[in-house]
């Protein structure tokens, strides 16, 4: 090996330069020990590293370490025009890209002042694909959660059913996961011919499967015993910690931005907001959070059915419909600060923009990610639990590290 190919020069000091742990061994009492979970442990849902202070099997303290998947989204966004940021937005919460795009496109449209001119058909298609993606995301959440605590079968069932959704979305956009389908001012393309029929078939197919999922997982005695009364998140702590999405609703607050803000065509659609009721244990435990996600699957199916009725009824496809008609040639919002938020499957996704009115690129594009904030409550609710329950709590928060680290 020639000297030019050496990538790493070993120096003694390199090992002590960074301080990877917060807890120091010399400060421990004799019965305590530090256990490192992750970043490669399968039940930490990606590259999440937890530094756990244990007393026997009891968790005394958890220190999450994140940033292993940091991809400099905000720095990239400061150097790209608004429309070119959309593929980066896809990669935030990469199991629910449509929802991310919807939030982002909505924000830029509001800044441009064209939000109320978007055709109804475009809005219904956006909501349709976003809700399909929400189902896919909740499938992953519920399926991997079951696998975390030992139920293997439901994972395969939901992955099989999720594949139907991904094929539908691939048919519409050309990509399985990272779509770049919702554009600022419109859509990449109209729905393919026959999409509505296939989507209806899917809805009919999936309904009995959800019942099976309920029977095999949520009502399962083993699952209930592992999740009920575990990781109880009281409502006041949930609000104070900024938690949103199914985790907040699991704690009993009927708070869903689709209803609260009523963006897009959600005010015209009928759906309920499920909240945790403490059926199996205390309100706000792991079972409640999973149950909220499960009930949201049914609500999303209701929304999809209504969207399909609209897309084949009042807003059916026509020859002269151009989903790109309103897509601006130059996206240059006037100078302003703007905060937009929307409900993605994990909670409130927010974007803060600052524009100077002279450039096509934002001066600042900050992403308020819900997984990041939801994860920050983990040390609070996992004090004094067993280490096996810690795994159950992480799974019930449903973090996607792509969104935590951005």
């Amino acid at each position, binding site marked *: 090996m020639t000297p030019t190919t050496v990538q790493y020069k070993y120096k003694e000091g390199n090992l002590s*330069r*960074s301080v990877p742990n917060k807890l120091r061994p010399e400060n421990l009492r004799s019965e305590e020990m530090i256990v490192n979970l992750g970043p490669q442990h399968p039940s930490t849902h990606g590259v999440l590293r937890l530094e756990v202070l244990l007393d026997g099997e009891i968790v005394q303290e958890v220190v999450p370490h994140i940033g292993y998947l940091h991809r400099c989204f905000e720095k990239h966004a400061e150097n790209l025009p608004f429309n070119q940021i959309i593929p980066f937005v896809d990669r935030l919460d990469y199991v629910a890209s449509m929802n991310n795009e919807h939030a982002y496109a909505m924000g830029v449209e509001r800044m441009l002042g064209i939000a109320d001119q978007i055709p109804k058909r475009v809005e219904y298609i956006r909501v349709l694909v976003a809700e399909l993606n929400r189902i896919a995301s909740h499938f992953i959440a519920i399926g991997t959660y079951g696998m975390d605590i030992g139920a293997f079968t439901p994972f395969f069932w939901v992955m099989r059913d999720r594949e139907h959704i991904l094929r539908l979305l691939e048919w519409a956009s050309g990509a399985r996961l990272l779509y770049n389908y919702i554009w600022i001012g419109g859509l990449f393309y109209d729905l393919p011919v026959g999409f509505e029929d296939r989507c209806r078939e899917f809805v009919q197919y999936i309904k009995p499967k959800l019942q099976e999922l309920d029977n095999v997982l949520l009502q399962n005695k083993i699952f209930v015993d592992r999740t009920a009364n575990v990781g109880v998140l009281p409502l006041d*702590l949930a609000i104070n*910690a*900024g938690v949103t999405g199914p985790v907040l609703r699991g704690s009993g607050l009927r708070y869903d931005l689709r209803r609260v803000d009523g963006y897009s065509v959600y005010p015209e659609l009928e759906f309920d907001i499920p909240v945790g009721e403490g059926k199996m244990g205390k309100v706000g435990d792991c079972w409640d959070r999973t149950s909220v996600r499960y009930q949201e699957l049914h609500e999303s199916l209701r929304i999809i059915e209504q969207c399909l009725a609209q897309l084949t009824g009042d807003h059916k496809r026509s020859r002269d419909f151009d989903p790109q008609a309103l897509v601006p040639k130059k996206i240059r919002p006037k100078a*302003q600060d703007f905060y937009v938020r929307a409900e993605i499957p994990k909670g409130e996704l927010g974007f803060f923009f*600052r524009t100077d009115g002279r450039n096509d690129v934002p001066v600042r594009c900050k992403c308020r990610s819900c997984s990041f904030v939801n994860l920050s409550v983990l040390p609070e609710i996992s004090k004094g639990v067993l280490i096996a329950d810690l795994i159950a709590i992480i799974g019930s928060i449903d973090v996607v590290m792509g969104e935590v680290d951005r």
Partner: protein
Amino acid sequence: MTLDTIVSILKGALGEITLQPDTHATPQALIVDRAQILSVCKTVHQHPELYFDMLSCVTGLDNGPQTNTMEVIYNLYSIPYNLHLMLKVVLPREQLEIDSVASVWRTADWLEREVFDMYGIHFTNHPDLRRILMPADWEGYPLRKDYQNPQYYRDIKIEY
């Protein structure tokens, strides 16, 4: 509720403080003096007519070496009254220090750590101010406008 009402409530509770409305912001924004941010946050959090119980977002922002200022922007939301409020604090680049609001909202803990990580703004009385996304020994603050990409990290050449 209009911004004027919020301003009058704040002035009633805190006496004469400088609050400057910002017209180019959505939701409505107030520019707050650096020394008063903690008392303003406490008031809007606890006042029975405002009750901003959720801190949505803390944004750091660099205006560049020419302007020589940085900003910290707080997005608040009141669940019971459905109110939005944006608070802005402008800091000179020579003195990047501001009171932490983590004692008011727990959300601020990680959000402020991220601002510290990316901009080097120091939050006094923060419970645990460490880097969060970047490695602990990373040099410089990546989202500053005058940030230079490093050539080496731990003697490993970084290729772009």
